[in-house]
């Protein structure tokens, strides 16, 4: 029978002050976990309420102004407060330093500062919520965002501040990966999770400042009226979209790359198989990071940008499919002849492969200029990005949470309930969003409060799907919280994996390692090294 270690990072210091002033990367990861999951809950509530309103073609319980605010807040909270920070700030903070054999990140105080900056940004966002809401959509497009009377300034200021949190985390990871790898851990012995985080960090540092200046320009435009986005004063509203998407398209990869990083870890650990094409996956992360910077205009095909620019962007967009395809094929090839264990993290991995492939392939439809003209601003787009962001990133995040949960808390969750929850989320997700592909292709525009009677069955089915998903999430919250109290001790290495974090106690000690570990084998050398699961050997 496994036992919990007597002292670990959770109980080495006590009291709320020890948490609020901690510079331990693991504790900061937990602080992020609590705050980000809170906002995931808030954003999720808006989603359920939106779907409920769309159950009928006419008004059900909120008016159109309120509806506009609901979808704006759902989008803004989910993007800026949940999905961008989720994986790097929670799992990256907790796992990355241990994975490379370090005692902490390179700048522990900056790490804590980034959490405080996140909370300040979140406060501004919450303030805009109580101060009348925002109804511009999460993209804050001009000219509407410069003229609406809702709280645009506070929420954009919030997103501006959150950008700094993102930059601090990214900078910290870049320096940590360069400087703190343990002896023997060469670049190509790094776990692919670290490669993914590194590529993400590069995008964060390069792209987030552009978001900062864009939102600052928007605020100055609103307050002082400098006219940079106002045609009457020689400005250009489409220029705002260039600025915005130059950050926000790479931001899509800030969201998906960490998800891909998690999948690389889970697929090997739960099939006990050496990853197929290590270097191809590592380089494709950097390839995606670079390609993400040259495709932003595919969000603007119908904005009035020049046809020349639209053609160039359409052409460039297809390049993103290459590194993404490389990854998917390599993951599938990794499974071949592996000893696959259908644990909860593996189920999430398989769900990811299925859903992300649909999301990615429909992205190719939309990257084609002529098809996009038809599908632009329909539910097809909504379905596409939810398949990538939820089917890809959120599913990978949930998988990662289940994969490293025993390491974070030292206890196992109830596997049966976890599998049921995973199934409910998978089925509910497809009910909700596959329906939206169909109605989008038939012409149902996005962001409409009232709609044609012909779309009622689709909307109703989509809403039922959202309820199935919500039940899955509630079940997950139940068994994860319950596991903290009476989950059985997981032991050091419940999955029999090879990376450094599984060689130390669960939960880890305060400083991770008593002596800096030597990396003498690759992270996925399952053909050379045998690691037994601490769950099955008891």
């Amino acid at each position, binding site marked *: 029978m496994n036992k919990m270690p007597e002292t670990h990072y959770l109980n080495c210091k006590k009291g709320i002050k020890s948490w609020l002033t901690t510079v331990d990367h693991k504790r900061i990861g937990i602080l992020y976990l609590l705050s980000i999951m809170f906002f995931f809950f808030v954003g999720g509530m808006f989603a359920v309420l939106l779907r409920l309103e769309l159950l009928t073609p006419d008004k059900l319980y909120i008016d159109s102004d309120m509806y506009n605010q609901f979808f704006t807040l759902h989008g803004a909270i989910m993007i800026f407060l949940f999905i961008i920070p989720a994986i790097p700030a929670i799992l990256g903070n907790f796992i990355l330093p241990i994975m490379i054999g370090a005692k902490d990140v390179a700048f522990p105080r900056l790490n804590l500062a980034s959490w405080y900056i996140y909370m300040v940004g979140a406060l501004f966002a919450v303030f805009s919520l109580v101060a009348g809401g925002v109804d511009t959509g999460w993209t804050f497009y001009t000219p509407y965002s410069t003229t609406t009377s809702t709280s645009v300034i506070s929420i954009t200021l919030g997103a501006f501040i959150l950008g700094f949190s993102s930059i601090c985390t990214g900078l910290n990871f870049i320096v940590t990966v360069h400087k703190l790898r343990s002896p023997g851990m060469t670049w190509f012995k790094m776990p692919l999770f670290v490669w993914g985080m590194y590529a993400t960090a590069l995008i964060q540092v390069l792209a987030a400042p552009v978001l900062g200046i864009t939102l600052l320009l928007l605020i100055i435009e609103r307050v002082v009226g400098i006219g940079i986005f106002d045609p009457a004063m020689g400005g250009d509203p489409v220029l705002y979209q260039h600025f915005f998407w130059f950050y926000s398209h790479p931001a899509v990869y800030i969201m998906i790359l960490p998800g891909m990083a998690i999948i690389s870890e889970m697929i090997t650990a739960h099939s006990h198989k050496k990853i197929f094409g290590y270097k191809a996956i590592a380089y494709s992360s950097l390839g995606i990071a670079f390609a993400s910077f040259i495709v932003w205009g595919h969000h603007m095909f119908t904005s009035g*940008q020049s*046809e*020349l620019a639209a053609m*160039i962007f359409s052409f460039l967009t297809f390049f993103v499919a290459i590194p993404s395809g490389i990854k998917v094929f390599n993951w599938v090839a990794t499974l071949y002849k592996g000893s696959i264990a259908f644990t909860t993290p593996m189920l999430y991995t398989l769900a990811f492969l299925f859903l992300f492939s649909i999301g990615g392939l429909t992205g190719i439809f939309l990257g084609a200029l002529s098809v996009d003209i038809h599908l632009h601003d329909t539910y097809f787009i909504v379905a596409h990005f939810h398949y990538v962001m939820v089917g890809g990133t959120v599913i990978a995040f949930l998988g990662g949470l289940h994969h490293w949960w025993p390491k974070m808390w030292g206890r196992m969750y109830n596997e049966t309930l976890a599998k049921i929850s995973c199934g409910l989320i998978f089925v509910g997700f497809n009910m909700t969003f596959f329906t939206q592909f169909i109605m989008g292709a038939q012409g149902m525009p996005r962001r409409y409060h009232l709609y044609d009677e012909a779309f009622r069955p689709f909307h109703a089915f989509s809403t039922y799907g959202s309820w199935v998903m919500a039940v899955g999430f509630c079940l997950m919250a139940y068994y994860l919280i319950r596991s903290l109290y009476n989950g059985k001790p997981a032991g050091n290495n419940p999955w029999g994996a090879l990376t450094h974090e599984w060689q130390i106690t669960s939960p880890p000690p305060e400083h991770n390692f008593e002596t800096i570990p030597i990396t003498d084998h690759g992270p996925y050398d399952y053909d050379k090294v045998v690691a037994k699961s601490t769950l099955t050997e008891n």
Partner: protein
Amino acid sequence: MTENTHTNEPHVLPLSIYLGIGSILIFLTAGTVYAAGIDFGAYNLLIAMAIATIKASLVAMYFMHLKYDNKLYLLLFLSAIVFLAIFIVITMFDTLRRGDIYEIKSGAIRDAVIYDSLPADTTTHAIADSLSISTDTTDVVIDTTH
């Protein structure tokens, strides 16, 4: 870590280099002012930007010590410039070419009748009469080939 060859000792340059570079910067500033008074036509912007780029490079290389520092920092600095250039250049594919009309659309626009002012009688029939076309809807054939 074997890759860390950079030492933390400050790199000190002789004063003469600072003064020399400073003089060149002042000279180039005078050059910018002088060039602004001459009309080079389409090259005005190019010349001003070229001088500014040389000045910025000198500042980065000598005053910011990039010339003597670990080349990784030079790479980072240059990559930031590359990304800025990507942003500006691709955005200009839009802003400079917006409203351009390509062959596929130009036929319809070329054949269209453009009035300097509307005819006195602006009813559909009067306009149709002036163009000698029938207003009988059964005769209208919409040409969708272009």
